[in-house]
């Protein structure tokens, strides 16, 4: 099922949570809504589900305008951040709830409901735990019950709010891979909300980066990582460093010398963004960004150093090989291998 969000604005008591958001989700896609807290990602998810109504704009499921439909009529599978399992019901009763509450005409027979629920529990690898109560399950198991319960109603779209937020790091990684497998098997159109960029980049077909109620960038994990289209995306996804540069005649200048980097921006001041690991060290006499090492720490296989560079109050971070001889107060020069220049804000 295609989902189309068209010009949606949402205000809570006059406080805007989303400004004019539009998003096309293709059938069978796995989409991540990624952003810091307060960016509006959960609001967007809840609008798609019908748990909130937009102040302006529309939500389409296929060609059908779903904006006017209630959450019950939209037939979406929603997995809540803390799962919201019914604590007084057993696992199997939780999973079969959505089928049991259907009106008589479309409700499957008791045996059929039981069969389908058991099948789903089998699918999420929880067979044998049918009679348990949610309080008797681990976090990862509850998460899987919540997913099975959402899938039981044969939803047109699967929506997950911070699906791994409440789990510890190890379980998170396992479930992440497992969710991808589930998605590849069932081909449900799936949207999930996360503030964890690793999760979004690893799992999603496309990532929607959000900030302050707006969509900053929509793209594949490669696109948003390699070609961020704004300073926000650059600094939010992956590590980034930035420094002030001048643009003269289509070339970048730093501290009175040309860097040998061309730019199609108009002359003036700009901000040069690059990844700390994506640089080459050069001889200090060559054209590049030179600075004095003020701090150095070992990060895994590499060493991360902070450079005090000319004319900048903030230090610039770069990564160098762990066996590099640089110590504090050494001078080092480098040039980014990939970069982007944005107007100075």
């Amino acid at each position: 099922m295609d989902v189309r969000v068209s010009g949606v604005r949402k205000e809570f008591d006059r406080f805007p949570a989303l400004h004019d958001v539009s998003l096309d989700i293709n059938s069978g896609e796995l989409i991540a809504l990624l952003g810091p807290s307060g960016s509006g990602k959960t609001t967007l998810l809840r609008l798609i589900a019908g748990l909130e109504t937009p102040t302006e704009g529309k939500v389409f499921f296929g060609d059908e305008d779903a904006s006017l439909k209630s959450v019950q009529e939209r037939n979406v599978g929603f997995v809540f951040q803390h799962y919201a399992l019914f604590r007084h019901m057993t696992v199997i009763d939780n999973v079969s709830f959505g089928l049991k509450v259907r009106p008589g005409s479309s409700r499957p027979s008791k045996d059929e409901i039981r069969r389908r629920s058991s099948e789903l529990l089998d699918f999420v690898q929880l067979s044998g735990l049918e009679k348990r109560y949610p309080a008797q399950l681990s976090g990862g198991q509850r998460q899987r019950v919540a997913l099975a319960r959402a899938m039981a109603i044969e939803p047109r779209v699967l929506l997950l709010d911070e699906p791994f937020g409440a789990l510890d790091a190890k379980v998170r990684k396992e479930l992440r891979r497992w969710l991808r497998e589930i998605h590849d098997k069932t081909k449900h159109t799936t949207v999930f909300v996360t503030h964890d960029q690793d999760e979004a980049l690893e799992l999603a077909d496309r990532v929607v980066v959000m900030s302050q109620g707006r969509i900053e960038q929509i793209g594949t994990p490669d696109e948003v990582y390699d070609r961020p289209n704004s300073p926000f995306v650059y600094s939010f996804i992956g590590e980034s460093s930035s420094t002030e540069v001048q643009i003269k005649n289509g070339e970048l200048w730093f501290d009175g010398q040309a860097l040998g980097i061309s730019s199609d921006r108009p002359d003036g001041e700009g901000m040069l963004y690059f990844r700390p690991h994506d640089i080459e060290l050069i001889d200090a006499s060559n054209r590049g960004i030179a600075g004095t090492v003020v701090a150095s720490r070992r990060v895994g296989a590499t060493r991360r150093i902070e450079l005090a560079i000319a004319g900048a109050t903030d230090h610039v971070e770069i990564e160098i090989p762990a066996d590099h001889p640089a110590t504090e107060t050494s001078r080092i020069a480098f040039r980014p291998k990939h970069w982007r220049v944005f107007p100075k804000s």
Partner: protein
Amino acid sequence: MALESGPVTDPTATARHATTERRTARFVLTGIALAFLALFLVLPLVSVFVEAFRKGPTEYLAAFSEPDAQAAIRLTLLVASIAVPLNVVFGVVAAWAIAKFEFKGKAFLTTLIDLPFSVSPVISGLVYVLLFSSQSALGPWLKSQGIEILFAVPGIVLATMFVTFPFVARELIPLMQEQGTTDEEAALSLGANGWQTFWHVTLPNIKWGLLYGVLLCNARAMGEFGAVSVVSGHIRGLTNTMPLHVEILYNEYNFVAAFAVASLLALLALVTLVLKTLLELRYGAELRAVGGH
């Protein structure tokens, strides 16, 4: 104070001087509390039963075979059986509205629910007298329709309901607020309608809190004196509830009968207390499960 001063004679305790002192203080505090309890709660309770059985069990039982006493017991049961279920419905509805929805005037409604607690029961009764007496606007019209409110069962039920209104709502509001709305949202997203969501999800989540509220509400409904006294008219065998009957018997110096009926009310209080304690044990565990979920 003599308990606290003076050297400690027990040689094993000298090493743990600090603890010993605390223990002394604990004894004093516990002693004071127990003395208060004995004086103000246990003693009166015991004296109720002592007075009731002063002339032996035959006299005690005779107090209940009197038609007026039986009428009072029947009326009390009838009033409670009407007032408590209605207050359960109102209480659940009010708590649901306050805990699950945002609307203007919510703070005002919450305060309003507490009103019966802050108003003297006599005033609560007088309000109904003003509303339904023959001098009021409503009274003559109701009379012409053949509906008796004051000095009849409907007035007693109304006064009782007013006084006991907050018990269920007050118990449920904090509970429902703590539970939030995600369970309901989950049920709705799975296709349940409003009634199914309430019946299968909300109600099971609040059942222990609800039972607790019903218990307190019932105890108060059966025991209410002030408001009921104002509206009842004290017609023997017709509009006397148990508390009113006790008063009449007492004023007639019929102490054994008065205390016999009073002992029934005291028993009700004891049963309520035991059930409440049991529920608290159960309900506390339930709440902890909510927190750990």
